[in-house]
């Protein structure tokens, strides 16, 4: 048996996303099973059926110098803003309409 990975497109124009995997003796079986598992309830516009061996997995990513500004979680806008405000001697307003980035208050890259 071969493992096949199935990717599902929910609506036309949307990206294909991983739906799951299945075991099948060959491609014909895999396509038929993918149809039953991921298509017959109207949940997919289309599916891609790919033997797992055709998927190239990469799981090593060098980041030796900790350049954390490359990372989505590595750069706190909140902290930077706080520092900037202190430097400017300007406390944040509680209810602000002028600057949307103050209202959201989140960590943005």
């Amino acid at each position, binding site marked *: 048996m071969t493992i096949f990975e199935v990717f599902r497109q929910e609506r036309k124009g949307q990206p294909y996303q991983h739906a799951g995997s299945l075991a099948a003796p060959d491609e*014909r*079986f895999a396509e*038929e099973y993918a149809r*039953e598992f991921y298509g017959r309830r109207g949940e997919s516009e289309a599916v891609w059926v790919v033997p797992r061996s055709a998927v190239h997995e990469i799981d090593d990513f060098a980041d030796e110098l900790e350049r954390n500004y490359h990372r989505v979680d590595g750069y706190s806008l909140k902290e930077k803003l706080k520092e900037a405000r202190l430097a400017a001697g300007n406390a944040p307003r509680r209810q602000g309409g002028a600057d949307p980035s103050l209202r959201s208050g989140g960590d943005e890259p």
Partner: protein
Amino acid sequence: MNSQGRAEFLLALADDELLLGWRDSEWTGIAPDLEEDVAFSSIAQNEIGHARALYELAARDLGTTADELAFDRAPEEYRSAPLVELRFVPDWGRTIARHYLYETADAVRIEALTAAADEEVAGLAAKIDREEVYHRIHAEMWLDRLLASEEARVRLETAVAELWPYSLGILAGSQRREFSGRVRGRLPFDLAEAEAVERGGHAEALESLWEEMTEVRRSVPGATW
């Protein structure tokens, strides 16, 4: 065809699909693997769905309901071909042999119906055929898979030889000859000339299938669900 004749013809088709769907559903939970379990159960559901649509059409002609036709007749009143009545669990080889033979015969029948002058019948046949396409793909790929290994091939060949006379009973006349030609052209082994097990008689296995199938309905006659 008058409406009585049409209803009787539709009933034969509907009974075939209902009973085969029921038999195929006996594999739910115990098919060779999980993927096949889902696929074969889905085919079983489709067949029962086709039966319902056919019963509804027949019920209109006969002034009754699909449920009454499906469940309120005595076993001897069913018009099914004995092929679909046989119980094969847990023999996957015979199950696939029947699946292939039935789908091949059904294709001949459905093709003729899509060209019928009766627009209602032709329309329904076309709808049913759009699902049957996948049943045929499924049957064909299993046929090839079983033919590819020695042990499976022997078991399949034995099963086909056993079921061949039954499968001839699904169709009559020129459709039977067409079916026979397609099967002989497809299988890599010879099939003996055989006398068809005709519609009208029933397999012994129908009795217990009928008991099970109608049990809930008989428990509270006339109830609506």
